[in-house]
């Protein structure tokens, strides 16, 4: 069976900054030869510390950052070098939610516009009324009041804003959502609600997740398989049980040992 998403030997390098000030002139190898796949309906966790390259992997997949080398396959098709226009139908299948729900929502737009915008782009045939109905439906799907469709992001709490981000991602009926630290900025009780919501949606819609995080407990809880990144490379990958019960790589062991336990 072909995987939904496959990444082969992905590299993202950044050229040194040219500037007046003296500084490091070496190429930054943010992602340096990363390969993995995500199957339909599964959750793959991607853990690492700051600077490990985990966020860059997520962004490179949906062309938010240019790829230096390697291949990205969507359902077996090479989509690495597609133009922005050619890539648009793929982007409908791969959506992303971000860590900071406030920073990723336009403060001047109502929830209806924020969520509706994506529908307008990817489903141009829908009428305005249909669109509004769909946004209201998405609102209740993520646990928000459909009546609040005319409100602005600042009128919602952090957890509710993350729900708006999820509604926006769901609007185009994706098959894979890249979740970049979706609960890191939230209180633990709100975090639990969002994680449960993501799991419910996965069950209902058969979604696959690439779940990027630094909290090893959260990643263990949500993932079927786990990738551990350090210094731009995947140092270890395996099933959740393999990574958490029988870690082989010294970096993974070290990371797990550092987590304080009750």
């Amino acid at each position, binding site marked *: 069976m072909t995987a939904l998403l496959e990444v082969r030997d992905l590299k993202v390098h950044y050229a040194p900054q040219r500037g007046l000030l003296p500084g490091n002139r070496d190429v930054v190898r943010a992602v340096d030869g990363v390969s993995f796949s995500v199957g339909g309906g599964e959750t793959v966790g991607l853990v690492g510390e700051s600077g490990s390259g985990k966020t860059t992997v997520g962004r490179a997949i949906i062309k938010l950052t240019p790829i230096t080398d390697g291949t990205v396959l969507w359902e077996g098709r090479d989509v690495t070098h597609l133009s922005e226009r050619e890539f648009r139908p793929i982007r409908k299948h791969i959506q992303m939610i971000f860590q900071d729900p406030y920073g990723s929502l336009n403060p001047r737009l109502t929830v209806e516009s924020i969520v509706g915008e994506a529908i307008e782009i990817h489903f141009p045939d829908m009428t305005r009324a249909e669109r509004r109905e769909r946004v209201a439906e998405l609102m209740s799907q993520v646990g928000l009041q459909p009546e609040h469709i005319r409100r602005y992001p600042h009128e919602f709490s952090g957890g509710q804003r993350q729900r708006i981000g999820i509604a926006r991602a769901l609007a185009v009926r994706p098959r894979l959502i890249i979740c970049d630290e979706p609960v890191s900025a939230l209180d*633990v009780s709100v975090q639990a609600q969002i994680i449960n919501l993501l799991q419910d949606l996965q069950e209902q819609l058969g979604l696959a997740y690439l779940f990027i995080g630094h909290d090893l407990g959260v990643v263990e809880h949500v993932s079927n398989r786990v990738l551990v990144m350090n210094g731009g490379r995947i140092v270890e990958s395996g099933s959740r049980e393999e990574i958490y*019960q029988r870690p082989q790589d010294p970096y993974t062991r070290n990371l797990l040992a550092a*987590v304080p336990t009750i």
Partner: protein
Amino acid sequence: MPLLEVQNLRVTFATEEGEVKAVDDISFSIENGETVALVGESGSGKSVTALSLARLVPAPPARHDGGRILFEGRNLLDMTRRELQELRGGKVAYVFQEPSTSLNPVFRVRNQIAEAIHLHRPDVTDVKAEIRKLLELVGIRDALRVMEAYPHQLSGGMQQRVMIAMAIACRPLLLVADEPTTALDVTIQAQILDLLRELRRKLGMALLLITHNFAIVSNLADRVLVMYRGKIVEQGASKEVLRNPRHPYTRALLACIPRLGSRQKRLAVIDHELLVK
């Protein structure tokens, strides 16, 4: 006499939508050399409580409506400005969550630590040697280089060590650490917690640790206070509270965290409406 005794403290904020009781009649105490953890979520009042201990909450908009904060038996709420200045950074010191925003970006590390020494320790003659000693005490090996660095040249973990060095420069009796490791990676977090443990032993100071992480509580704190909506809903010995939480909020908070190896199918959620009743 306890080092710190908070009696029936109330802190209210006047907002456009009316008064908000951020801290609502709380009482607790900290003994010399003791480590107490204050646990709660956003809006629970834990940070306002922590800041009140040196009268750092700006008033207005805040108002202390009664209660007493006794530090070595003297009520902070009656202190003059001058007395408070002596207390702040002298006997009570703070370490905050984001070291990068707490350090002044345009001054070298040595100047920032020197400021604290000049203000509170006129007895120190060789300031440079003292700074070096402090940096070494917080586990910085190349102290001479770090002294001359600007904050942006240091990693997050190093910045937090510098913050701790500044905080302990005046040998405080109470160190208040507000989420000191939340912004740090897990391996760095472990190092900073080890450092706090070691400093507590070497300097014998009391530690008030503000956190939302129960694992940190169990590793570091003698006692724990759980705050919810401005009130302390539960307090007791850390081991006892973690093993046998009595208040429904404490129980819910413990249950909603995905712990390593715990294998929950679904996370518990907190029913706030039920708790308020």
